[in-house]
């Protein structure tokens, strides 16, 4: 058996003579191969030595192994390079794409909005989609006879629902698919005390026929702020700030009277048209304004339903149409594209 020094000399000679990649590989097996490599032979013979010798020889062997491996790697690189000589990489060739995934456009817009609201201190809740009439309508000051509570507008559940809830619901409170994300207003108010800043993004349902701009399933983002002295002016500033963040440009807003049972006063918030900046164009029907956010001051009946003391708080609430914002943002012309999953080509653009 050779000594380490002999191996080193022999390797120096052999490595000088190497011409091809195959020869490098051959050297690798001969010197540092696991089964029959010269270095391993030495290591295997160590067991006959004393502990001290083992230690010193072992360490030297490892040093040599590293030297050899390094030299072999260099050689291999050189050989490979020589083999490649004369072939110039065509840099105009396309890249090899990784498997690329896609998030749904509604997810992208919802994420963006959640980030904006969270940064302003709003907490985010989603809540149940199968909801009781109490939270969806009654607690929001929709009278028993309000047309919205008519069965033809809402999907009503036939099967008995046995969920455990803090409240007991009356027989006039059927279970249904939530018609708006406002169902979370009283749920949140029951769970937390003001000051409250909350948004509820989510899926809502309306019993209506589907066309390019109507869907029985669509997405909203409800928001509300409750504190001791919240004013209409707070609603205006907050919504303007939010819209500025969403559209990434300064916008002008205006309020118009609007009626919703759970706010009083209630408003439609118009935003200066994003296409023409308010000059007037076909998108805004030449008015310069686009109706965007129904909003208003939370109705005292809603606070009452949540069990808040009369007159203790004021607040504002608003609803953003996530489906509509997403369509605006990406120029999607047909709301049915969101669930037309037969066209991967649509989803692959996001």
């Amino acid at each position, binding site marked *: 058996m050779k000594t380490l020094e002999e191996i080193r000399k022999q390797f120096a000679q052999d490595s000088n003579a190497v011409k091809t990649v195959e020869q490098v590989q051959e050297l690798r097996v001969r010197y540092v191969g696991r089964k029959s490599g010269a270095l391993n032979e030495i290591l295997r013979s160590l067991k006959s030595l004393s502990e001290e010798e083992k230690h010193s020889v072992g360490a030297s062997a490892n040093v040599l192994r590293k030297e050899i491996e390094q030299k072999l790697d260099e050689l291999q690189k050189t050989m490979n390079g020589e083999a490649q000589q004369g072939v110039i990489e065509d840099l105009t060739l396309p890249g090899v794409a990784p498997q690329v*995934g896609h*998030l749904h456009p509604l997810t992208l817009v919802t994420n963006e909005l*959640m980030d904006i609201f969270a940064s302003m201190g709003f907490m985010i809740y989603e809540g149940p989609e199968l909801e009781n009439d109490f939270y969806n309508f009654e607690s929001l000051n929709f009278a028993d006879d309000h047309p919205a509570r008519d069965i033809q507008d809402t999907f009503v559940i036939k099967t008995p629902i046995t969920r455990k809830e803090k409240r007991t619901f009356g027989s006039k409170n059927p279970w249904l698919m939530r018609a708006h994300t406002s169902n979370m207003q009283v749920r949140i108010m029951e769970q937390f005390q003001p000051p409250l800043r909350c948004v509820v993004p989510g899926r809502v349902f309306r019993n209506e026929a589907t066309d390019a701009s109507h869907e029985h399933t669509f997405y909203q983002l409800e928001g509300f702020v409750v504190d001791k002295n919240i004013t*209409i002016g707070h609603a205006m500033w907050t919504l303007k700030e939010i819209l500025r963040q969403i559209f990434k440009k300064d916008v002008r807003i205006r309020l118009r009277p609007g009626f919703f049972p759970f706010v009083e006063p209630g408003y439609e918030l118009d935003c200066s048209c994003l296409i023409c900046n308010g000059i007037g164009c076909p998108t805004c029907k030449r008015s310069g304004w686009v109706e965007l956010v129904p909003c208003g001051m939370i109705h005292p009946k809603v606070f009452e339903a949540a069990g808040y003391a009369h007159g203790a708080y004021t607040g504002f609430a608003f609803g953003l149409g996530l489906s509509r914002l997403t369509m605006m943002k990406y120029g999607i012309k047909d709301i049915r594209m969101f669930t037309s999953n037969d066209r991967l080509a649509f989803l692959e653009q996001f």
Partner: protein
Amino acid sequence: MKFSYSWLKEYAKDLPSPQELLEKLPLSSVEVEEIEEQGARLENIIVGEVRHIEKHPNADRLAVCTVHTGAAQEQIVCGGSNLFVGMKVAFAKVGSRVEWHGKGEMVEMKPATIRGVKSNGMICTSDEIGLIKLFPKKEENEVIDLTAHSFVSGTPLAEALGLNDTLIDIDNKSMTHRGDLFCHIGMSREMAAVFNVPFNMPQFSEFDTASLPKVDIAVEDATDCPRYMGIEMDVTIADAPEFIKKRLNACGVKSINNVVDITNYVMLELDQPLHAFDVEKVGGKKIIVRRAKKGESMMTLDDVVKELDPSILVIADEQKPMAVAGVIGGRESGISENTKRIILEIANFHPILIRKAARAIATRTESAVRFEKNLPVAASTLAAARAVELLKQYADAKIVAFNDTYPVDLKTHENAYRPTVELTAAQLTRLMGVALPGKTIIELLSRLGCSVSEQRRTDGVIFDVSPPWFRQDLNIPEDIVEEVARLYGLHRIPEQKLSGELHVPAHEPIIPAKREVRNILQGFGLTEVYNYSFYGEELITKAGLQTDKEHIEILNPLSDDLRYLRVSLLPRLLENVALNQQQKEFIAFFELGHVYFADREVQQLGIVVANKQEPYRRVRGIVEALLQKLHIAYNTEVISQNALCEFWGMYQNGQALRIDVAGKISGTIGEVDTTILNNFDIHTRVGFATISLDLLAQYMGTIQQVKSISPYPTIDLDLSLIVPQTVSWGEIENVVRAQAGELLQSIQVLDVYVGGKIPAGKKSIAFRVIMQSQERTLEMKEMEQWREQLVKKLEKQFGAQLRAV
């Protein structure tokens, strides 16, 4: 609803221009949808006279006419059924725009040759130029006959007919809570208040009823019908006066005769719907307001027989229903040319009853729309005075009997105003964010007809606000704040920055978890889909599920394929795969969504991977990598059909891998059963996983401590074994792990192979064991010995043999 601008101006002469109303009214009140110049579509349409008619040489139903147009004569081919020489007609010149046969697009009139005969224009039917309300057709091909008017040929038609009004179209949705705005007086009053111009409420002459006999009226339930006024009158039926016809036309209401037109006119003016019965047809001359009986039916004015039931309120005589209360009259008891005496109904009905009745008989009339908005009972008082005044003047009416079940005298303060609402100045400032002087508040509210008084109390200034009788929507202080704010000008309210306690928002825990899961899966190359929460029996069955197990049913689904709430994301995901399989060989979708059960609603992650090669292992790889990325510790266990689960039909060979997190079942992974793939026409293999998002949210980030990295080299040991096919990798792995102990760094399956040189009933598994010590460099010899022992053990336990390489 369409309003006539000239009619609105009758009560408020200083109203701003229609264009200004369009732009500014919505900022303080209702939304104006559009303004329409009445004569605009009648450009190049003139009065003409038919001078000559002869048969068209090539068409039986057409005539060739010569029409005198004042300055010239034109040859026209016409299919009119009522043509005669000397007839004055509405003539559309070349260049005018008409609607062919009253439907479809407007087209421009051009010179034409019709069956070989030249034609330069058109003699119009009323629906071709939007005048159907003014000139109702009796026959399909009837052209407008203007002969009775003394119009001069060549006069523009709009000018001849006095169609110079502007129509203001107000969006009904924006005034749902403002029932008082569904009439001209109400709208004019609102506009006058908004623009701060004078409004003059017209005064109607009262009629004396003291000495009159009573009309026999029986109201069975005053809740259904709080007020019923019946006025019996002798009348002379004739055409309505021109001004009424023109205003009805402007508002899109068909003219019938003086009596019917006056009832409609009063409704458009004062909101109160009225109805007239022919006394001859009222059996027993008695008006009974009652619920319909089961099985009763009635032919309504639109000639349709409606089935009635006890949810519907009717106006009946002693024998039969004569009208569906507040919705539509009956054909039989209606006014005809021969009517001599009428009972005029001016009543008030329960709004919900009317809404439901209108829906039940599928007839939502102008009358129903108004009653639905909870018309005040006082409205009848004004409407009666106005209707009698007009009927006396234009139908020679003489009152012969009268009755009113709930008289309301609007001259008393109690009737003229609604209950007082107490608004504190502090409350107003607190909501508006701006403090207004008391006199401004009083001025603004007075414009709306409120009676306001200001009091100074120790706790501040208080306004006692009594809204006028017609503002039934003003009941609480917040309602009054809304009125003050909109008249003050919403644009004048200063914006206020949101301030207050600063909290790090505490989101629902699933919110950040979903974000994380989505980002990771996108990174793994999966595409996110959104599917409906609903599906139908067909899809449920195709996916091997059953509708009667766990599924929640919708009472009123849009269609059968949207009848049930999903209990699994898989059926729709398989549908997604089926629809996309032509485009890609490798499909990887995921969805995050709710699934619904009677006792709970949970959020799930569904993953499908469609690929010919090892789809199960791909999905498992995705799920395990996801769990690692989320820093969640988990266990896996192969489960088979004997476990209790509704979903077994989905899994190939009735086996699945269960994922447990913290001892809780959190999901399963498997390959989709071939029968189910066939049901969906899927021609590849599909692996799938469903995982509870709620559990991921709960346990996300629970392993965070890093392991120390060993400074010593690893040793790779590759083994290739031949074992019986019944031996699972999991069993082999357990033995390897047990024997390796803490030296095991990882195990990788390199290859699983059946067939070829491998004997029948056996399979070859090649795997690599990577060993490493935290304390020392492992020696090759030691490891080789270890391997020999392992092989022996595997040989003994599974009959494994080392495969020659």
